[in-house]
């Protein structure tokens, strides 16, 4: 029973979806890349999108409402973000693999309760909670504290990237960051847990022990929720898809998808 949701459907918005399709369709499931708060589809377009397509998977990167090239939505909630993901996923030609980064992983976890994904990959997942908030507060008090009062959550370069990324690139990426809606930010602290996933999809969790946003304990907690252990990439920052060694995590994800059919109808 979802009377409450049925009675109040999410308002439609224009959504930005970037895609890269391999030259040869090999019957592999498409990947839908969901960026975290503040990021847009551009974060994936930088490196991962083309690489995924080059390896024979069609890849789609979207921007949540209010981010990147999607229409502005200052009053959006986590539910609206999850709605965006499900809408884009259901619009793809085949059952999709959902890949969520940062708070986008939480959005994906919510979306999984509304869409039977082929599989899901949570990259450096931010599931919210007080511990994560404490870490953010310690590392970047001036970027985090105003968010409590409704301002945009600001992340600095040192939180997001490792030292290996050239300073100019880090500055360029950080300059493109936007912000999530304040209600969605609050829901990181106060929101309810995602409902159980439908269709029993296999889930991979990966992250970095040197991530300055997601503490290792939070990473383990997120992985335990899906009865697995996180795959670790030491020395990388929070934004694994933009960092200097972006190639390693995405290759690991694709290898996992090829190796782990998960459900028997995966080609």
């Amino acid at each position, binding site marked *: 029973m979802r009377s*409450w949701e049925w*009675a109040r*459907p999410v308002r439609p918005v224009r959504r930005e979806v970037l895609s890269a399709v391999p030259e040869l369709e090999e019957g592999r499931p498409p990947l839908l890349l969901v960026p975290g708060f503040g990021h847009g589809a551009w974060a994936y377009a930088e490196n991962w999108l083309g690489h995924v397509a080059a390896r024979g998977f069609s890849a789609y990167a979207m921007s949540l409402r209010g981010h990147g090239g999607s229409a502005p939505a200052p009053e959006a909630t986590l539910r609206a973000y999850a709605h965006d993901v*499900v809408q884009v996923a259901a619009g793809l030609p085949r059952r999709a693999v959902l890949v969520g980064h940062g708070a986008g992983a939480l959005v994906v976890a919510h979306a999984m309760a*509304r*869409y039977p994904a082929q599989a899901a990959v949570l990259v450096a997942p931010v599931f919210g909670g007080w511990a994560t908030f404490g870490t953010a507060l310690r590392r970047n008090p001036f970027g985090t504290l105003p968010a409590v009062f409704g301002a945009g959550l600001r992340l600095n370069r040192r939180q997001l990237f490792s030292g290996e990324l050239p300073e100019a690139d880090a500055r360029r990426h950080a300059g493109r960051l936007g912000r999530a809606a304040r209600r969605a930010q609050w829901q990181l602290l106060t929101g309810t847990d995602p409902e159980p996933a*439908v*269709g029993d999809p296999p889930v991979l969790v990966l992250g970095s022990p040197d991530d300055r946003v997601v503490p290792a304990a939070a990473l383990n907690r997120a992985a335990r929720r899906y009865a697995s252990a996180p795959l670790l990439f030491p020395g990388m920052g929070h934004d694994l898809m933009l960092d200097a060694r972006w190639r390693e995590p995405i290759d690991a994800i694709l290898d996992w998808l090829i190796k782990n059919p998960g459900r028997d*109808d995966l080609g």
Partner: protein
Amino acid sequence: MPTSPEPGRPDPETTTLARGPDGRPVSDRGDTVCVIGAGASGLTAVKNLAEHGFGVDCYERETGVAGAWNWRHDRSPVYASTHLISSRPFTQFPDFPMPDHWPDYPHHSQLLSYFERYADHFDLRRHIWFGTEVVRVEPVGDDRWDVTTRSTGGYGPERTSRYAAVVIANGHNWSPKLPRYEGLEQFRGEVMHASSYKDSAQLRGKRVLVVGAGNTGCDIAVEAAQQASRCWHSTRRGYWYAPKYVFGRPADQVNDLLLALRVPLRVRQWLYHRTLRLTVGDLTRFGLPKPDHRVYETHPIANSLLVYHVGHGTITPVPDIARFHPHSVELTDGRQIDPELVVFATGYLPRFEFLDGKILGDDEGVGRPRLWLNALVPDHPTLAVTGLVQPDSGIFPLAHWQAVLFARLLATRASRPERAAAFAAQVRAGAGERYSGQVKDSTRHWFEVGHADYLRALERALRELESK
């Protein structure tokens, strides 16, 4: 859950051959489940069974998916202007939303594309045998079923396959129900059932009598009001004609807001009556009969335009038909009218022509089976009917959860037989249960369900199945 190695087509080379009771070869499909029909309910049954690890063979008599919603299909009741009666959130599958930029009440062609995308997205077509109709379904002991099929139209040989379970999703809006009237045979005008109504051009310039105040009857009456030279609309009783929008939103969304707030039925009825009174006012002053029931006691009619056209004098409401004369129709109030065309929008009856009526507890063969949750069959734990509900809302979410329940039940039979046996006892005990408030009895209202009550009952059943 063991699955057949290749969940695609039955292949006589790889399956073991058994002999049927009449000595004909039967190809044994092991744990595969048979789904009859690839309409909305059939598709969601295929998808959910496959998702639970079952091999699935689906037989569809037409050459495409979407059953009733594909208007090229000869059993489709859809007419050119058909739009949804329930708004989008109530009509989509819960795990495959319609695009949110679609209108609140999509057109039937959008529904068709929605089902085609559903089939492609979840790769369902490889499970479906198109152009194949089911001739017979027979129980063969051990809760297994022999399903005999042949090419649609009766060409080619029959072939029998043995399945672990059968899901009947053959739809209930294709076998027209025609009422009997005295003198109908002598009537010289044209008579048609709404199932053969396709396009408003059929009404143009004629004097038309539309019989029946279902959603179809109201739609046709509204089209006749615009196209025909004269339109009478005959109804047995007065109805509540709900507008499609109230308070600036689709009416069913407002209703579910009240349901979510747990507003009791009586209060909702009062609010409803109040709202109608404030917007369309007293219908009896247009000559419409006063409803003899409270709202929510018959299948809801959502039509904003009917009252509008009655108010413009382009629809004349008339009472029930008494008898037909060669050139006129006599009404129960003694009036005589002279229509050229009579459209019977008198509904459909569910029919299971391939199955012995006794199996579904339909002893008289009147298309009124005795089931639990309108889906599960007492004493036949591996048989289910999906989509045989007439909800006051969209039907597809209900069919989805029916399919999920049946798939979990089959899985439970393998993993925890004792739990499944207890559940079967419950099916027996609960057969014939109803899921709506008080409703007026008729051949259509026996499977009327309130979507909220029904979904809660399904949810309880799912919980019980999962419990220890």
